């Protein structure tokens, strides 16, 4: 047992092992003060099967840990002749199953070594980057305490293309440092004639406790089972996950004999597993997959987070967001100007929540005229414009589950278009030039109309530039008004298919378009006034002569 902290818990577990008849050799880190060490040794002095081995200085990733295990193992093999398996644990390990079961299990497999041991090529878990290079470069400095020197030396060695000579016969393997080896294998490693050369080599390997025994066991073992009997989960940084009281049910479902690391103050866990260990008869079916899934989800949540969520602990840099918003949504430009009652129609056709102009100058026009949306999102324009990106992401996050659609136009605050354009979740459909239709229908003083038309056209031109920029990642479709009107149902069907309609049939009900008689004349008037309307496409000034008097445009359906 390697101990460096939480001595009362270590004592508790050591007694537990000793009570079941297992001799324990404890190594206490040399960094622990003599006073603490003395008290600890004194507390365990009443147990004859608990011994203390020679102390070494143990820094993470350095040779001290291996030296400590070597000395402790030697002491164990020398003093206790009937020991057949030696299990390496730490002071924060907790036996999950009765010790007798572990004894029976190991007795049934007298020649098997339980040590996780995989070649470097196959191992995906190397946190920190160096895998093969652990064995081919020199690592005299501690990664934790002298990081700068550590990094510089690695760089220098890479430049000089240094490659160490690996001792003959040794194939570097890596694995969890909590093993359970047979006397045969352990004494073969410790009394091997090659021990000194091997030690000289592994002394300067990085994290030797993950590779010394793992590599050498392959040379001497009769039967290796490449798994550790200790349950140990790691977080995204490679630190072991710590188990607390609320993990009690989870740990009961594990099929491992020992778990680490346990929080020293998790009294319930120690009470439950040490004082009332459940025998095999009472225990639930082991389900280690459940534990794996819980921790895999935790790591994923930590490293990737939830797309579209911005909060005090998650504020990703630009382009590292893993998703700007939380779900898909649609932006329509020009549709509500061209069609009558477009928003209710869209809501009926798709079942989505359809808002008006969310970025309108006076207020955000939420669906059904609500002043406040999910999550207490207010329609106040000043609050919205203070941080328009937060407004958008909050809206999508708060309403996730329901598809959102909203209208946009050249009247609206233009800054948000950049965010919309580069969001892959956005579906943006534009009928350019449709802002002219309300102007056309309103009538009134033509010179103010003309000025407004010019301003709107300029605004829309800038919006379209954003949409056409190479960084735009949204699904963008732009039609001029003229080309849209020629065949309105096809683009509508396309858009709705992408959204996912309520009924999968083709569109049965079409939106009613505004009456556009005389629109061509209106555009010509604007041109006569000196403006140059081009975004809406070409409209004939006079209606085409034909047998019918005024060919009114009716919406038509494409029938199957």
């Amino acid at each position, binding site marked *: 047992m390697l101990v460096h902290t939480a001595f009362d818990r270590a004592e508790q577990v050591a007694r537990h092992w000793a009570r079941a008849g297992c001799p324990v050799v404890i190594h206490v880190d040399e960094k622990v003060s003599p006073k603490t060490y003395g008290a600890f040794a004194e507390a365990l002095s009443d147990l004859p099967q608990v011994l203390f081995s020679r102390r070494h200085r143990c820094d993470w990733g350095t040779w001290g840990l291996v030296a400590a295990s070597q000395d402790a193992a030697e002491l164990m093999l020398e003093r206790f002749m009937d020991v057949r398996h030696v299990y390496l644990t730490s002071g924060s390990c907790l036996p999950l199953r009765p010790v007798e079961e572990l004894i029976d299990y190991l007795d049934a497999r007298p020649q098997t070594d339980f040590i996780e041991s995989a070649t470097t090529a196959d191992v995906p878990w190397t946190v920190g980057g160096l895998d093969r290079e652990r064995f081919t470069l020199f690592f005299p400095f501690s990664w934790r305490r002298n990081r700068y020197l550590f990094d510089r030396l690695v760089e220098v060695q890479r430049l000089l293309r240094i490659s160490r000579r690996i001792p003959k016969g040794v194939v570097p393997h890596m694995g969890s440092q909590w093993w359970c080896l047979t006397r045969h294998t352990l004494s073969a490693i410790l009394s091997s004639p090659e021990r000194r050369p091997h030690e000289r080599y592994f002394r300067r390997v990085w994290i030797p406790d993950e590779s010394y025994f793992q590599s050498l066991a392959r040379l001497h073992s009769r039967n290796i089972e490449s798994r550790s009997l200790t349950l140990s989960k790691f977080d995204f940084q490679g630190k072991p996950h710590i188990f607390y009281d*609320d993990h009690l049910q989870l740990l009961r479902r594990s099929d491992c004999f020992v778990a680490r690391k346990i929080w020293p103050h998790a009294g319930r866990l120690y009470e439950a597993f040490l004082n009332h260990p459940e025998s095999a008869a009472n225990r639930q079916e082991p389900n280690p997959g459940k534990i794996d899934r819980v921790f895999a989800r935790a790591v994923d949540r930590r490293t990737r987070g939830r797309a579209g969520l911005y909060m005090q602990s*998650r504020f990703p840099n630009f382009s590292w967001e893993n998703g700007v918003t939380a779900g898909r949504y649609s932006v329509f430009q020009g549709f509500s100007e061209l069609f009558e009652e477009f928003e209710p129609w869209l809501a009926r056709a798709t079942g989505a929540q359809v808002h008006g102009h969310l970025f309108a100058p006076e207020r955000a026009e939420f669906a059904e005229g609500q002043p406040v949306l999910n999550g207490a999102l207010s329609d106040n324009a000043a609050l919205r414009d203070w*941080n328009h990106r937060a407004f958008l992401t909050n809206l999508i996050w708060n309403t996730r589950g329901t598809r959102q659609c909203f209208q946009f136009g050249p009247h609206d605050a233009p800054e948000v278009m950049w965010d919309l354009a580069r969001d892959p979740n956005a579906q943006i459909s534009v009928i350019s030039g449709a802002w002219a239709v309300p102007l056309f229908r309103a009538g009134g003083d033509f010179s103010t109309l003309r000025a407004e038309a010019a301003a709107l056209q300029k605004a829309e031109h800038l919006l379209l530039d954003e949409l056409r920029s190479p960084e735009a990642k949204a699904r963008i479709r732009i039609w001029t008004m003229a080309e849209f009107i020629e065949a309105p149902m096809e683009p509508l069907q396309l858009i709705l298919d992408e959204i996912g309609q309520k009924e999968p049939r083709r569109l049965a009900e079409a939106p009613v378009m505004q009456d556009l008689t005389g629109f061509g004349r209106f555009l010509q008037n604007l041109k006569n006034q000196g403006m140059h309307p081009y975004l809406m496409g070409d409209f004939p000034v006079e209606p085409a002569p034909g047998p019918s008097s005024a060919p009114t445009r009716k919406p038509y359906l494409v029938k199957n």
Partner: protein
Amino acid sequence: MGAWQSYRLRLQRKRWLVRALRKRRELRCVADRTDRIRPSDLIVFCTARNEGVRLPWFLKYYRDMGVNHFVMVDNDSTDGSLDYLARQEDVSVWHTRGSYKRSRFGMDWINWLLRKYGDGHWVLVVDPDELFLYPFCDTRPLRALTDWLDASSIKSFSAMLLDMYPKGRLDAQPYTAGQDPLEIASWFDAGNYSVKRNKRFGNLWIQGGPRARMFFPDQPERAPALNKVPLVKWDRRYTYVSSTHMLLPRGLNLVYDEWGGREGLGPAAAHQVPRHV
């Protein structure tokens, strides 16, 4: 940031420390039990004025969470809360008549007491009406969180302020001392917060919630800041800049993930995806 900018922040930090030093004379010790503080204790620092009705639950809540000692500053209360605090066995309390506003909302006094008693401890700096919550707080005491932060070499932990309010009129249900306030005020705004990054100090500037919605609809830039860094492994050199929103040195404010992950429990230095060498 450049060396000059860095130096200016250093000067600013020193300036707040000197100011705290000067203001210490405004404090008069009423009950000093700081000799009972042990090296690994968790300490709460708080400034209060006439909060007598809130204090019983405040103390109970944090004691249950595992806080070992309270260091309180009473800003001339008239409702007997000073005596109440002086009687508590795990509270050390100072009294002052100084102006709350002129001492930068009590921060000068707190900075001084932090420098004197907080060095080397995990400290929680809160107002008497603030309850601190963190993931798994219902099953794990505060020490579990601070042990984890120590193991990860993280020195500060951020939190966002959530304004709680009751259903119906604000004054409809009276609060009695010792009652759990969340029984009455159990509602909050879930999704209307604006988050921006403050380039100078590196922290996140969060606004929103019901106060921004109701009181600052026309001046959103003046809405109160909701970002805080309440839990810190204190060192004598640290200082709070503006209430508990920001700390110097700057690195303590970088408690959020910038690379797409979620820093539920944030690092003291800018987080980087583990890239080695």
